[in-house]
């Protein structure tokens, strides 16, 4: 009495719709939850026929669940994928626990769908049912492609900008040379014949020329970080320190400064640029000193895969509200009369550190005497084979962009 309608319904359903049902023996224990997974889960029998499929086959491959059941897995892949697919499943049978590869699948409409295939035996038996998970890579591939495009664009515009800065600063020297030379001649030729106003005007003009020249030189130096950089090599930071201090000898003597350092490591980098970096940071400490002679100390601390190198001074400090601005081009916090400068020095530092794949920052309370601590990070070496062996420096930006791209790609893969 009870059994009859069930049997009848069952027979009716089968004969009328010929609708294959998922094999309950191999279905996962939480079918509703599994349907929510944003990837195709298939369970294959020992003949590699699909016995179970979750709801994701609809959005990913365009099939209804019922259309997939009872068909071989290879039916959902393009012909070129089938050998690799068979190989993957054979590998499982020969005892490899879990395997993964990327292959183009084929949708119901015949479109190619890039998927990542992960396969794993369901039970203990190597020849028993196999669970196959298909992750749709369409979106990731599109993102990767967009990212690659953007990276190339960025690298190009970076290069354009450097070229522009280089040409502009070089061509700017020309008229400046004229202004400078002729004011000088004017001053010489009419020395003693000019009134005090005129002499003051000449002095202002001369000051302007000197400042402009400094600005152009700094701009050139800034542009050259990208265009004139050298390939990376192992560099002892202590030698970098010695050279930077040597270059600053006059300023150090004039201020009666004491510049010391702790143990310093070897890093991978562009020696000339690292000297410039340390020289600018130490020079900063010499310039913005307190009432007494400045004390500057350079130290290095290992932090995982990087060295964190700091330059600590006991000068006037930088108020916290200005700390974000100081690494930008042409940002100055003081009048020219107080402290001369073009405001490019720290921007150059930032560029050098970034070219080396590191970070730069500043810590200061802004209270006089507490001083400022600049820090930057450098790779401990060997971590950037692409960068250290890159022969052409013009390609640097491209390789940086590529590195960023592969990093983002990795992160994306973790997220999807």
């Amino acid at each position, binding site marked *: 009495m009870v059994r009859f309608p069930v049997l009848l319904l069952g027979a009716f359903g089968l004969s009328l719709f010929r609708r294959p049902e998922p094999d309950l023996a191999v279905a996962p224990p939480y079918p509703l939850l599994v349907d929510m997974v944003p990837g195709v889960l298939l369970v294959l029998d020992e003949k590699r026929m699909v016995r179970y499929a979750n709801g994701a086959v609809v959005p990913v491959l365009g099939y209804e669940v019922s259309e997939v059941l009872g068909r071989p897995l290879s039916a959902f892949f393009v012909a070129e994928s089938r050998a690799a697919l068979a190989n993957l499943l054979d590998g499982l049978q020969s005892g490899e626990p879990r395997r993964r590869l990327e292959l183009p699948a084929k949708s119901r409409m015949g479109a190619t769908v890039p998927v990542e295939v992960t396969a794993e035996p369901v039970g203990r038996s190597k020849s028993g049912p196999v669970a196959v998970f298909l992750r749709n890579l369409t979106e990731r591939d599109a993102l990767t492609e967009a990212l690659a495009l953007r990276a190339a664009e960025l690298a190009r515009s970076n290069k354009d900008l450097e070229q522009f800065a280089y040409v502009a600063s070089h061509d700017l*020297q*020309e008229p400046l040379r004229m202004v400078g030379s002729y004011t000088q*001649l004017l001053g010489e030729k009419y020395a003693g014949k000019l009134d005090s106003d005129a002499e003051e005007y000449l002095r202002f003009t001369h000051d302007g020329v000197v400042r402009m020249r400094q600005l152009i030189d700094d701009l050139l130096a800034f542009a050259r970080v990208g265009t004139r950089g050298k390939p990376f090599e192992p560099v002892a930071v202590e030698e970098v320190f010695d050279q930077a201090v040597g270059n600053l000898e006059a300023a150090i003597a004039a201020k009666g400064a004491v510049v010391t350092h702790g143990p310093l490591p070897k890093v991978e980098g562009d020696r000339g640029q690292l000297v410039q970096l340390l020289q600018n940071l130490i020079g900063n400490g010499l310039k913005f000193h307190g009432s007494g002679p400045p004390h500057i100390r350079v130290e290095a601390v290992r932090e995982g895969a990087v060295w964190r190198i700091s330059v600590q001074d006991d000068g006037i400090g930088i108020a916290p509200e200005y700390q974000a601005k100081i690494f930008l081009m042409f940002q100055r916090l003081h009048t020219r009369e107080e402290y001369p400068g073009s405001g490019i020095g720290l921007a150059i530092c930032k560029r050098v550190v970034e070219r080396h794949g590191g970070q730069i920052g500043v810590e200061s309370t802004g209270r006089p005497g507490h001083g400022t601590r600049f820090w930057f990070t450098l790779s401990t070496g060997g971590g950037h084979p692409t960068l250290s062996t890159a022969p052409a420096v013009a390609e640097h930006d491209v390789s940086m962009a590529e590195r960023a791209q592969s990093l983002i790609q990795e992160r994306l893969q973790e997220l999807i």
Partner: protein
Amino acid sequence: MLTMTRTGSPEAGTVHILVAEDSVADAGLIREAMRTSRISNELHVVPDGVEALAYLRRTGKYSGSPRPSMIFLDLNMPRKDGREVLREIKADADLRRIPVIILSSSGAEEDVVGAYDHHANVYIRKPVDFEAFRGIVRQIESFWFSAAELPGA
């Protein structure tokens, strides 16, 4: 045949220098620097490469011009630039003996190398500072017109 032009000495005649320079202001600086020179000199300024070669070959209005003992050559000039002029001078059996001093504001490696490749006698980058420029002109004088022996015309 080789009459030495020891221009540092008082009995020497006037030194003729061809200045190929399109910028009047730059030519003025050279003139200014040479004005206080110890040696008696006469500058012949031409504004481009075509005129420079016309001068050297004494064609047209330059038919009666004196042969220069030295050429100051700017690289970037209209019509025919200094690179071409240099090549033509150094390809000319007669003109190539005249020392060519490249005076350029360019510090580009390819300009420097290119100039020496084409047998420039010396490449000098115009300094930004006039005092430095005057110093360089002094050095050119003392080296080329005192220390060095130059072939006569």
